[in-house]
């Protein structure tokens, strides 16, 4: 006759075994994918169900675009800093501010053009149906924001507010 406390412990072991088996098996694919591709590209491969050769093409395009994107980010930051500096002392829209805004608009245009070109190239590296889906999703996320999505949400605190309360 097995003692009751042994069965009680065995029950806990059973519960742990069930948890580990199901949790492990259902997340294994994600862990493997993230280890192989990194978090950025893992999403592309999983979401658009890319075969290995298609994924390799997308990966090459992604790696080539990353430094271009970083340079654009640097230019955007530089323009934002310049604009913030001018606005600190300005009483109205000065010619300098106008010039900086013009330059910021140019950079924005360059960024959007570069980004959109990259999206097209990536979509062409995918199977046609997945490419169309990718393009539609990326455009919706980046270039076609609704007016509502640009407005701050009611009750949501801005980053500045949060910083001020720290």
């Amino acid at each position: 006759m097995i003692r009751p406390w042994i069965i009680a412990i065995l029950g806990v072991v059973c519960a742990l075994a069930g948890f580990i088996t199901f949790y492990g098996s259902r997340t294994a694919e994600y862990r493997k994918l993230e280890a192989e591709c990194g978090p950025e590209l893992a999403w592309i491969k999983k979401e658009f169900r890319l075969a290995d050769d298609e994924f390799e093409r997308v990966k090459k395009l992604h790696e080539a675009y990353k430094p271009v994107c970083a340079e654009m980010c640097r230019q955007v930051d530089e323009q934002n800093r310049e604009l913030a500096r001018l606005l600190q002392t300005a009483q109205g829209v000065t010619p300098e501010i106008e010039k900086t805004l013009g330059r910021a608009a140019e950079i924005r245009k360059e960024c959007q053009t570069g980004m959109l070109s990259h999206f097209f190239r990536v979509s062409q590296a995918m199977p046609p149906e997945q490419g169309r889906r990718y393009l539609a999703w990326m455009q919706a996320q980046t270039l076609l924001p609704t007016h509502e999505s640009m407005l701050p949400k009611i009750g949501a605190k801005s980053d500045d507010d949060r910083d001020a309360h720290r």
Partner: protein
Amino acid sequence: MSTKTPNQDRDPLEELLKSWKVEATLPPRFQEDVWRRIDRAEQRSASSISKWFIGLAAHWASLLRKPIGAAAYLSTLLIVGSLTGVWRSDRKVDQTEIAWRAAYLQAVVPAAPFAYHP
């Protein structure tokens, strides 16, 4: 000015109470009995909780001794553990996909001018 003497101020009830003597005697070992009863009442309330736990444990033990009770206990815990695993893995998968999507957008979208809502 009052002209009453101290004897005239005395309350008749007070006088009566002073003259009253208790003649009844307490039962033998009265004090000891009172303390014993208090002690017993305290012990009864404390042991009712521990008795409840002991009873529960004994009930569980008797259930686990029967093969059908042990099988029911083991399979219940196995099912609970497995369902928790499924539930937690679903949440983990959702969170991972959101994080991956955000990481991709961060990598390909130059920062400021674009509305970005992953």
